[in-house]
């Protein structure tokens, strides 16, 4: 495994740690490999303090589509995870590319509709986001 492959496999953990330490941008370099990662603004509230939210109806849920046809890689997020629009919530491997799946709205992310390693189509719905409030 190359430096970049290792790093890409650990990307969900890295994103998590950056969030916890309020780091929005990181540049890493090792030999021929380099990675620059910029995260969207973090959610204003602490996820751990967010009270569980009950879903009255699914009508207003916002779908989170797969950016491409490929293999879904989970970020390990659970269904009560609060997200902000633009936040990375998983990845899709499309050939040599590992593409981020980003939240399409602020709210509470539902469970992944596809298991880790599952085949997904172009713009298949991977999650639903329930609006807060």
């Amino acid at each position, binding site marked *: 495994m190359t430096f970049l492959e290792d790093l890409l496999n650990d990307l969900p953990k890295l994103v998590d740690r950056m969030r916890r330490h309020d780091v929005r941008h990181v540049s890493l370099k090792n030999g021929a490999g380099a990675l620059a990662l910029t995260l969207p603004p973090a959610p204003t509230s602490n996820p751990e303090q967010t009270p569980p939210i009950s879903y009255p109806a699914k009508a207003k849920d916002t779908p989170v589509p797969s950016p491409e*046809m490929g*293999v879904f890689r989970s970020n390990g997020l659970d269904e009560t995870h609060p997200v902000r629009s633009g936040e990375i919530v998983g990845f899709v491997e*499309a*050939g040599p590319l590992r593409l981020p799946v980003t939240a399409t709205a602020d709210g509470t992310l539902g469970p992944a509709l596809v298991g880790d390693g599952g*085949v997904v*189509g*172009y713009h298949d719905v991977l999650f639903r986001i329930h609006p807060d409030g």
Partner: protein
Amino acid sequence: MREPAVSVPRRVLIANRGEIALRITRACRLLGLHSIGLHSEADASLAHLRLVDETICIGPAAASGSYLDAARVLRAAELTNADIIHPGYGFLSENADFAEAVEQSGRTLAGPTAAIMRLMGDKISAKQQMRRSGVPCLPGTEDALPTDLSEAQTICDAIGYPLIVKAAGGGGGRGMRVVMTAADLRDAIETAREEAGRAFGNPSVYAERFLQHPRHIEMQVLADRQGNAVWLGARDCSIQRRHQKLVEEAPAIGIDPQAIAELGERCANACTLMGYTGAGTFEFLYEDGAFSFIEMNTRLQVEHPVTEMTTGIDIVREQLLIAMGEPLSFTQADIRTQGHAIECRINAEDPESFRPAPGKVQSWRAPGGPGVRIDTHLYDGYVVPPNYDSLIAKLIVHGTDRTDALNRMHAALSEMQITGIATTTPLHLRLMNEPGVREGGVSVHYLEALMRKSAP
């Protein structure tokens, strides 16, 4: 000692849409194969996707980002572990680069090899191959016309006028110019070259004698990987508009069956000589009792059902069996043709102007009765998208003879109901009563002349 287990390919990716995707799905189900339907984002509600074992959306509505995107189709094959890719017709079905990529991925394309596609895709090399195989060709240039216009003029003068300048890599009327006199030649070559370069990325053109009132006659063949090849009879596809067929029938009337049989034998032999595999069609112009090769379609044809109806052979099933490595289950001696079959292409188009008419199908009522077959992906509420070919249904009838088939077609067209969008049905109804069609044997110019005559 037990033979090592050989894995038989059983997972078929259907790399097409519409009625032909449904047709292939049915053949897969008949053979108990695992079918995988790919589709664009605009096509998630296609009829065959309810019948296949798996589906995958491969890209946006635009065909360039979905059905025509070879990399995406191949990725879909990888992700779904498909063994066989059936390309149907159109899209990637005659793309030799795609066929080569399929071969390199270790999969099987339901069709000939990439090398054969290239050989037949280039009209010059195809004609050379046909001449070697004894298939009749029009008098014309052996190679591409030289770039020097004076040299080209000398060659064309020797062929005689009228002649036609055609794109080596083309089809469908593009890169094609009819030259009535020697004075018009240079302009025709230059414009055909320019058009061919733009349309096909290959500016090479060739010239051959131009027939003024030919019929379009074509020969269906099937060839397996064991070197067996058969011909399944001729079709007459002369009712066309701008090189697009509208009505097809089998057999071709008014042509000596012995002449058809001799042509069929030559076509089957040509398949064996070049190592052709799968279904294919040799297209000819027919005038004054002579056949002249135009091109070979190295794929399934839209009009294959009329041959299925007259021979009783399921061509798509045979294609899949050939792709699975099976030998043909019948010989030439087993093939018999019976009765007469006609197909009308029902397009979502204005029947007068032929402008595409996409939109929502409010209601769809299929015709029925003895000898009536409908190949379609229509259902109530189906929305015909504007992104693709306008073919929405193929109405096929089989009668005891041609008159019976024409009558059955008229009755079936009258019974069929498609509301919400314009279709070519009124034109077909009219055609079934036209004296030229009733008599049969019209030329490829018949329909356009008829439309001109009836224009206000």
